[in-house]
């Protein structure tokens, strides 16, 4: 049985002005995948994520999410898809003037008909899901970097998204926090069936959570490999991918 496609990218070129980071990329993310976008520094991983999340217009190409053309589609349809997407930024990107609960309630206030009391309860539940039970009234400045990421994830989950994007989730975390976040991503995927797209170059996370991936190459500005990262390690298609997946080991 063929899997349902959640994200379909066709002929996508990513860059800034005249500067092209990646050209003519084609790939698909299936529903329920934990999809890794990996590659060396400067290959355009984060820019690719910015295109997928609508923060950066592509130079050319198509991004279709759940059958909606995100580049040229009707704004209302595009907005519906955005409402069902959550994003965890590198720094957590929590609003510093709000408590953690208020941060999580913000998208609910905008896009749901919950009563304030229910929203408050839901915010507490989302925080409990990411291991921050009882931190509702804390401000972002009062918690650690790892906790900020967890709170950012709780906010990303506020509207029960179909797709959650993660930008370098392990960046700046100690190994244990990083491992715990990986566990959380797997649990989220398993229990809620959420499609996960992760931009990272953290090998431990890539092998721990990923079941599908693309490898972006800065030199050729193309996708150099695709598939399950563990399979790519067993049968590397080329030297660059092998060296990346083995931390620079020479083939």
């Amino acid at each position, binding site marked *: 049985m063929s899997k349902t496609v959640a994200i379909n990218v066709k002929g996508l070129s990513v860059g800034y002005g005249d500067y092209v980071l990646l050209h003519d990329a084609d790939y698909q993310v299936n529903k329920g995948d934990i999809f890794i976008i990996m590659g060396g520094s400067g290959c355009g991983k984060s820019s690719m994520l910015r295109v997928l*999340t609508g*923060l950066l217009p592509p130079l050319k190409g198509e991004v279709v999410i759940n059958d909606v053309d995100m580049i040229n589609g009707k704004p209302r349809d595009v*907005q519906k898809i955005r409402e069902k997407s959550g*994003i965890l*930024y*590198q720094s957590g990107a929590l*609003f510093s003037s709000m408590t953690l609960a208020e941060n999580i309630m913000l998208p609910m206030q*905008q896009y749901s008909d919950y009563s304030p009391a229910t929203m408050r309860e839901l915010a507490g539940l989302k925080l409990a899901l990411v291991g921050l039970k009882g931190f509702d009234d804390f401000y972002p400045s009062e918690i650690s970097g790892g906790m900020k990421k967890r709170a950012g994830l709780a906010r990303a989950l506020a509207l029960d998204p179909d797709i959650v994007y993660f930008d370098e989730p392990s960046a700046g975390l100690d190994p244990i926090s990083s491992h715990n976040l990986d566990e959380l991503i797997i649990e989220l995927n398993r229990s809620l069936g959420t499609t996960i797209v992760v931009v990272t170059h953290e090998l431990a996370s890539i092998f721990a959570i990923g079941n599908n991936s693309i490898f972006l190459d800065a030199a050729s500005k193309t996708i150099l490999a695709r598939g399950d990262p563990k399979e790519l390690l067993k049968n590397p298609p080329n030297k660059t991918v092998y060296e990346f997946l083995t931390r620079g080991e020479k083939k």
Partner: protein
Amino acid sequence: MHTSQTNNPVEFFSKNGVIYITLSGDVLTYNVEKDLQKINEPAQAEVLKIVFMPDGLKAWDSSLILLVYEVVRIAKNKGIEVDLSKLPQNLQDLVNMAFEVDRKPEHKSSSIGGLLEIIGSVTIGLYRAVSGFLNFLGAITLGLGRFLSFRSIMRGTDFCAALEDCGPKALAIVSLISFLVGLILAFVGAVQLQTFGAQIYVASLVTVGMCRIMGAIMVGIIMAGRTGSAYAATIGTMQVNEELDALQTMGLSQIDFLVMPRLLALILAMPILTMLADFMGMVGGAFVGVFLMGLPYQEYWKYAFNAFTLNNFLVGIFHGFCFGIIIALCGCYSGLNCGRDADSVGVATTRSVVYAIVWMIVVTGIITVICQEVGI
């Protein structure tokens, strides 16, 4: 054979087409320019080989790595053989590491091009700046429309926080500066008026000056430096921390969420602060008139109130209202267009103050001309 320097940790001598570079003692924070010139001298054209002799070398730092690296680089270009074998192994490794990276990164030249290029880039920059600001003004207009039709997502708590910051928390500094400006106005006026025996008119001078324009201008300058810059820094930092991205991807309006509370707070606070500045300026003038010039207290205030007109007062308040809009827009616009590094936040902050002060002067000029034309 000759030695070039004495008591130098690095010495050169040549023999039979071979340059020997002896290293002795401590080669620390050593300047390599002179030695490199020696390698580049035309007289060295016949050199076949360069040999490093580190027999007495004790301690060394990056300057020695640089010397060896540059010697090897120059020698490679000239086709001269270099013998590094006697150097410590770790030094050799570091030099080799430096040579391993031979990729020349792409870097856009920042050199100034021809006149046409400069004109072109300035024109494009101007076009982008103007269209960007017009877009911003359009978005503000739509935001105001949403606010007036109760569809704005502006949070009441954000408005209250902004109002507290630009209202009660600014009272002390506005009062102090306005008092001092009134005092200065009175002093300057008194010196001239005393020559005609008309020092009592100091009261009129200070009242008209403060109420008509000086009160509003002083409050505008204080608030541009204090509040407008804070807006730019806060929103700019949110840009750096990806908070603006988060708002955008959540589909929440940055205008409603960030700009409207600040704009409305300043629109409300500035006229009130201007009234305070007018009063404190008059008090400053009275301080000079009564205590330093010996004018009768009641007489001073009688002349002051006689000079006070509703027109002057309202023109001053209108200035304050306009300045509030300018300061909020310049601060928020600079913050929203901030780059993504710490330096950009500083640039955005500076820009917000400069833009606000320039626009306040321009608007003052326009209001003054209009008032003159309509006889206010």
